[in-house]
């Protein structure tokens, strides 16, 4: 079975992809968040402008900008700008 991460998508990111979550393949040795995002944009070009203003969360913890490694089994959330209330 290929190694995967779970990508959670909310609001405009969910609408751009047409799904609230994806199972995305990553190398078994892991990858960089930036590489994952590039791959996502290649498949879903409408994500590009949204990712420029989004925050990213790995396993429940915010990542600084787009830096951070990801590994199989991780959960990565894409947070477009917030709009509660």
């Amino acid at each position: 079975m290929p190694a995967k991460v779970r990508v959670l998508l909310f609001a405009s990111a969910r609408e751009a992809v047409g799904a609230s979550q994806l199972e995305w393949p990553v190398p078994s040795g892991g990858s960089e968040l930036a590489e994952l995002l590039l791959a996502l944009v290649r498949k879903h070009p409408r994500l590009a402008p949204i990712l420029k203003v989004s925050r990213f969360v790995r396993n429940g913890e915010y990542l600084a900008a787009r830096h951070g490694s990801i590994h199989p089994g991780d959960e990565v959330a894409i947070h477009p700008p917030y709009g509660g209330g």
Partner: protein
Amino acid sequence: MPVRFTRRPLSVRSAYDAVSESHLGAVALFVGRVRPDPFGRGRVSGLLYEAHVPLASRALSELEREAKRRFGVERVEVWHRLGLVPVGEASVVISVGAGHRAPAFAACRFLIEQLKRKAPIWKTERARPVRRPPPRRGPAHARSAD
């Protein structure tokens, strides 16, 4: 156990009761409601709210603690609705119980402003379905005759 997030209508009365201890002299309430279409076209039927619930819950807990520390208020509840919220209904209710009105108002204002900045909650507009006239029935030649 705080309500925090719910898909059911929010009760302002319950939020008031939750912070209304008898020794507190002030309760401030903020209720955010879904507005009608700002352009008056009547197209918006409601807003669809979603949240990354574990993180949003954590953010609201931190804001509640911060409000108590910063303003010295005693009781704080922040409740947010999720799912489709029709126009006119409450999407968020914040209640603050304090000894006096000034810290109650200040904490209430702080909480709604910070919620908008820091809690992973989103809303997207949901439009009314466009009503089109029903298709005309009858044989094709009858329609083309007029």
